[in-house]
């Protein structure tokens, strides 16, 4: 047996790791994101002091709540190595169904429960099809994106259903007259995501599947089940997001959710979640969504044209991902 040899090898690794430790902390993607948020905040505040007005900050949080809720589900799904680009259409369809229930049946409790259940059902269907078809999830969810978009148009006949002021508390209400209900829901979802990813068997296994699906399967993980659950979580959170969004808007249009698919993916990826799976965190997700909201708001505060907003956002996504990639390569 050659114990000495191994111990020597161990020391070599240990010294290298020590010297790399603070370096890797500096290069950590989350640190970069926090730095970015601080710099952005300071710069915009200097140009327009209104930016750091508490009212504006609550405003930003309100603007990103729905995005954040959906992104949490998408982030966990991405960690497992799968993707869903149909979330926007899911929100549209669920929203139309919810507003129909309000307008046609007037059943408010049902209008609260139905979006969640419908979302979960959609998620189960998406998950089963992805797993059983063995086709890449991008393609399957592309198909479902079109299906749900069509469904939303079909159900609404292309027009809006009105909420008639029902459920306004969910979308516009504030707790203690200060913290919007939707922001509270957003924070709760992020906190739960953190707990799931860090402290549950389910979260741990998502990372393992995303990191190496075959190795996870060989280790006795029933990978298909976990992936179906991840899609169900996405669907359920789309239901929750639709509930809040439609309550806030006061009406459901067949295209309400358009744009959420790409926005969630962008926010989640900026937040350091690897699109190929196995990497990501709830903190990164929060930071990614906040950056998204801050930039929109800052451009607004700085009187930049709304059309230019997308150009800037797109460029920021590209730079964030490139920087993230370089920093992980250095590590």
């Amino acid at each position: 047996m050659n114990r000495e040899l191994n111990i020597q090898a161990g020391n070599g690794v240990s010294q290298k790791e020590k010297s790399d430790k603070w370096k890797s902390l500096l290069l950590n993607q989350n640190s970069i994101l926090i730095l970015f948020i601080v710099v952005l905040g300071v710069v915009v505040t200097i140009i327009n002091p209104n930016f750091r007005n508490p009212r504006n900050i609550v405003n930003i949080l309100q603007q990103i709540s729905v995005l954040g809720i959906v992104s949490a589900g998408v982030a966990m799904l991405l960690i497992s190595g799968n993707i869903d680009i149909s979330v926007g259409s899911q929100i549209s369809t669920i929203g139309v169904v919810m507003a129909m229930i309000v307008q046609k049946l007037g059943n408010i409790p049902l209008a609260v429960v139905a979006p969640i259940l419908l979302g979960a059902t959609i998620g189960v269907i998406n998950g089963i099809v992805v797993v059983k078809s063995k086709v890449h999830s991008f393609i399957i969810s592309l198909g479902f994106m079109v299906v749900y978009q069509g469904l939303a148009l079909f159900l609404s006949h292309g027009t809006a259903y009105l909420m008639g002021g029902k459920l306004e508390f969910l979308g516009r209400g504030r707790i203690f007259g200060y913290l919007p209900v939707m922001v509270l829901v957003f924070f709760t979802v992020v906190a739960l995501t953190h707990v799931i990813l860090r402290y549950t068997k389910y979260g741990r296994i998502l990372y393992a599947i995303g990191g190496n699906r075959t190795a996870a399967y060989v280790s006795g993980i029933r990978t298909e089940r976990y992936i179906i659950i991840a899609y169900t979580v996405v669907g359920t959170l789309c239901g929750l997001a639709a509930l809040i969004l439609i309550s806030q808007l006061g009406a459901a249009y067949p295209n309400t959710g358009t744009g959420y698919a790409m926005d969630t993916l962008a926010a989640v990826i900026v937040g350091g979640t690897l699109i190929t799976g196995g990497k990501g965190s709830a903190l990164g997700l929060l930071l990614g969504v906040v950056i998204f909201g801050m930039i929109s708001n800052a451009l607004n505060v700085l009187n930049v044209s709304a059309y230019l907003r997308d150009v800037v956002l797109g460029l920021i996504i590209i730079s964030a991902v490139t920087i993230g990639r370089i920093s992980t390569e250095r590590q």
Partner: protein
Amino acid sequence: MSKTPVLHIDKVNKAYPGVKALDAVDYDLYTGEVHGLVGENGAGKSTLIEILAGSIRPDSGDIVVDRDAFEHLDPGKSIELGIQTVHQENKLVEGLSVAENIFLYDLKTSNAGFFSLKDCVKETRVLMESLGIDIDPGRRVEQLTPVEKKIVSITKAFSRKARILILDEPTASLDEKGKDILFNVIKDFTKKDLSVIYISHNLGEVFEICNRVTVLKDGRKINTHKIEDIDVDSLIREMIGRSTSSFYHREQTSDTGREGDVYFEVSAYSREGVVRNVSFKVRRGEIFGLGGMVGSGRTELARMIFGLDQRDSGTLIYNGKEISADSPYEAIQNGIGLLTEDRADTGLVLDRPIYENISLVELGKKFLVMLDLPDERKQTGKISERLNIATPSLNQMVRNLSGGNQQKVVLAKWLFANTDIVIFDEPTIGIDVGAKSEIYNLMHELAEAGKILIMISSDTPELTSVSDRVGIMRAGELVKILEGEEITEENVLKHSIGSREKSRT
């Protein structure tokens, strides 16, 4: 056969960290000759052919083609000199036609610069006629039989003026009839003054087709013989050489009758074309070795037992009861573990920490919602210490560990899961001697503790010294179980290559 060598390899050396892959190897090849190259796994055959193909540079020595000496070749130069390799595995593009595959690197274009399938097909026809081959160039490769694919690969080699053809295990995917067709093609070629380097584990074939044969062992050339001057047994002896005396020796489990009632039985496992009617029993406290050449169906059998691959038939009996293992999850629930051969692809989540990798199987087994992180740390830490995994922290990503330590993490994972039956597929491949003996000691400990161990190994000394019994697989069948005094390297090799009988019937 002329007397001038078309190729002469002069004292070629190649070293990798810790291994001398080639040690002053000489080899020559005459025009119109089939010169066999034999040796155990890892003898240096692949390194030698990679050097000829120009993808590896030797550290020293010369490669003389005709009268020109080269210190090294590169792929372009190698092709220019007329050296062509036909690899063991099929490297054709399945969706394209035979003609397109053959001229893939030099597609014919019309005057206007567009790709012309017609010209490709025409050229292929001319080429095939000159070689005496009859396959429709317009057919798509996916419609061909294995032997037709092999012949297309060879034809492809000749699309660029080949003079020296390297055939690496050309019959691996062929049946007896396919082999005969292929041998006829080879014999025709050599009449046209082409020279062939023939690499095969199957000594029967070597004696059938080769004019001379060279034996490599641990990177050294042992000897070159005219085929009529040597017999199979002498050749095998040269391939094994003297066994290294420093090698690990396990005390065989003293009392083989101990707890003899508890055993694991694999019964009638079959899958068409891969594994045929394999049955064996392993007692508690025993290490059952599985030998045979690469491709003999050992890994496939292990994967079928573990529920990772489909099987046509077969049952498992453990402790008197039939158990089912139709998926890894089920296998693990019923007490079977498998350490796969390719740890990076199927054994480890490289970008997750050590402790998460170690606890993965155990985690999958249990029903729970919340993790007990402090307990997990403590338990995985204990196992990591017991296996002497060299790392400053359990948080270290597995990717950053050495090969030996990565293998120990895989081992730790299955140790932690504590399955009664453990199958090891090439447990010490690519790891250093120190880690090797630690792994052997651990296997011995597990056997002593009453586990049932099955070990697949291509390392013959390892197989003979670690196992209590050794089953030998050949062409998908379990042809022999060696016990006690019969467990010698010579016997393992002899039964693996089937020198006494025809290997394919």
